């Protein structure tokens, strides 16, 4: 009917944004004809007897197996020589608790830390901005009067319910004094739920877990120059 199939396939009935009524079925029905509404079987003969493709699949997995095993044995020779870390291994996964991937993105948002003043006191002034911004309501602060009048206000308690945290980074964004930061550390696991509440002292006991360059320390984000 003049439609250019292939050019605008599927939109033959669309003329100037108007949907025209579908043309009725133009073919003829004969008595007793069964109209197939499903796709015809499209398997080839080789596929239907299974065997060639079963063997092909087995060959593929066997190839992977053998390749990985050879890689493992090569790794084993390195390991025996005490150079296990240098060789390629036959698996893309790692022995998780013993090994941890060092290649997290430097902008990955993980465990929180509280930054410190020179005397190891928290830089936090207990302004509750993070607690206010927190969409998971997982930050709980109790403010107190600091003995130093220049500091005036400081957190007596600073608890983060790390199991509630969604790692959105809003606390970091909201902080006016750069006191809270999210490090790249994601290994936040424990057997007790009570221990998933990180208190002020724990948040202050951070130390760099991954330092790629000299100036990078936990929570530093690469800046666009």
């Amino acid at each position, binding site marked *: 009917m003049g439609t250019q199939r292939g050019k605008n396939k599927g939109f033959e009935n669309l003329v100037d944004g108007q949907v025209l009524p579908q043309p009725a079925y133009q073919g003829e029905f004969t008595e007793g004809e069964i109209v197939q509404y499903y796709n015809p079987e499209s398997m080839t003969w080789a596929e239907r007897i299974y065997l060639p493709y079963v063997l092909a699949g087995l060959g593929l997995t066997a190839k*992977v197996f053998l390749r990985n095993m050879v890689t493992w044995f090569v790794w084993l020779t390195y390991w025996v020589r005490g150079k296990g870390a240098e060789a390629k291994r036959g698996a*893309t996964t790692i022995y998780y608790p013993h090994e941890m991937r060092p290649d997290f993105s430097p902008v990955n948002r993980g465990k929180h830390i509280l930054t410190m003043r020179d005397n190891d006191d928290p830089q936090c002034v207990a302004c509750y901005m993070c607690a206010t911004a927190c969409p998971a309501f997982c930050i709980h602060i109790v403010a107190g009067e600091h003995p130093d009048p220049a500091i005036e206000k400081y957190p007596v308690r600073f608890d983060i319910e790390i199991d509630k945290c969604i790692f959105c980074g809003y606390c970091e964004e909201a902080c006016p004094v750069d006191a809270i930061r999210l490090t790249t550390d994601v290994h936040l696991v424990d057997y007790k739920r009570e221990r998933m509440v990180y208190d002020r002292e724990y948040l202050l006991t951070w130390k760099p877990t991954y330092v790629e360059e000299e100036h990078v320390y936990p929570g530093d984000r690469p800046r666009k120059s």
Partner: protein
Amino acid sequence: MDWAFLVVAIMNLSFVLGVLLNLGGVLTWVERKQGAVMANRIGANRAYIPIPIPQKGGGVKWSKRFTVMGLWHGIADGAKMIMKEDYTPPFVDKYIYNIAPWFAVVPVLVTFAVIPFGGPFQPGIMLSDVFGLVGADFASEWVMALFGERTFQMQLADLNVGLLFVFAVGSTGIFSAALAGWASNNKYSLLGALRSSSQMISYEVFMGMAILGLVVIYGTVDMNLIAQMQGDVWFGFLPKWGIFLQPHMFFIFMAALMAENKRVPFDMPEAESELVAGYFTEYSAMKMGLFMMAEFIEIAVIAGLLTALFFGAYHVPGVHGAGDAFYWAAHPELTPGNYVFGMEVPHVVVVVGRVGSFLAKLLFFCWFQILIRWTLPKFRYDQIMRLGWKILLPLSLVNLVLTAVVVLLIGG
């Protein structure tokens, strides 16, 4: 009393049970680890035996690194199953419920009785050689006095109905699934039992049909004779193994055996996506463990059957020269001699070579079955039935007729 025969029987039995039961445990680890390697993973690695390491400043630190690539997982599994609560649901038929797991294990173990795993050997000569090497001359004299130069078969039962025994005993495996499913008084279990019954009976039909071609060619069902005959050579180089006589039947026979074992891709009776755990849904602790153990031992038994029937049992390809040890195995009427490539070697080397050959092939087929289990997707139930009755059974019937005609024409 034939003490020599008794001692040989005990030796054979210890060897077979040692191999089978250990394989049953190790294969659970192999299954996990091989699946992991095939999927670029590391696999089971958490079970460890704590090693105390004394620290410099006093005190002891317990190392958790002694995992041996996760090999302890099999032991941990066994210990767990033994120590778990053996809970019997109140609604089951207790007697049948309790005996059903044994129907799974016993036939599997008994099937191996007729599989020849080392051919003929002379324990007197072999042992006196070994004792002579270590200098225990009195022991050499003692074994020579006991065995003399008698020849025994490395096979538990040298039955002349060997292959029929395999089918007869293997068929009783159905009882375990059917009885367990029925006695559990659980819909899932019953459905699993029904599926396993129909699947196993269906596949047993052409499992027998498929192997009949070989039987026609060899003219015997005695497993020992079949194994011996495979030591012959065609055209001077091609071993006369079942796989070269009836290669197509190898696939059908293996498919039937795997269906008998109810493992992926034929795991209809268990079908954890549909039937929880199929016929052993209601089983716990070591009773469930027996079903699992039977499954893994059966892998080894299937591998043994395939080796014995299609891959020359204990023969080593290439070592066929006249007078060679392995040629001699196929022709017992000839004078025995321990020659490899024309060189005479101690009898113990020949025995170890044969048994090693058999074990290597057996382990390969264990590996191959696990490869299949981690490669192929599950069949649908109707697909299994269609494959069995409509394709494999006619194929094996046609093969039987053609083989018979060819054997008649060539004259055996």
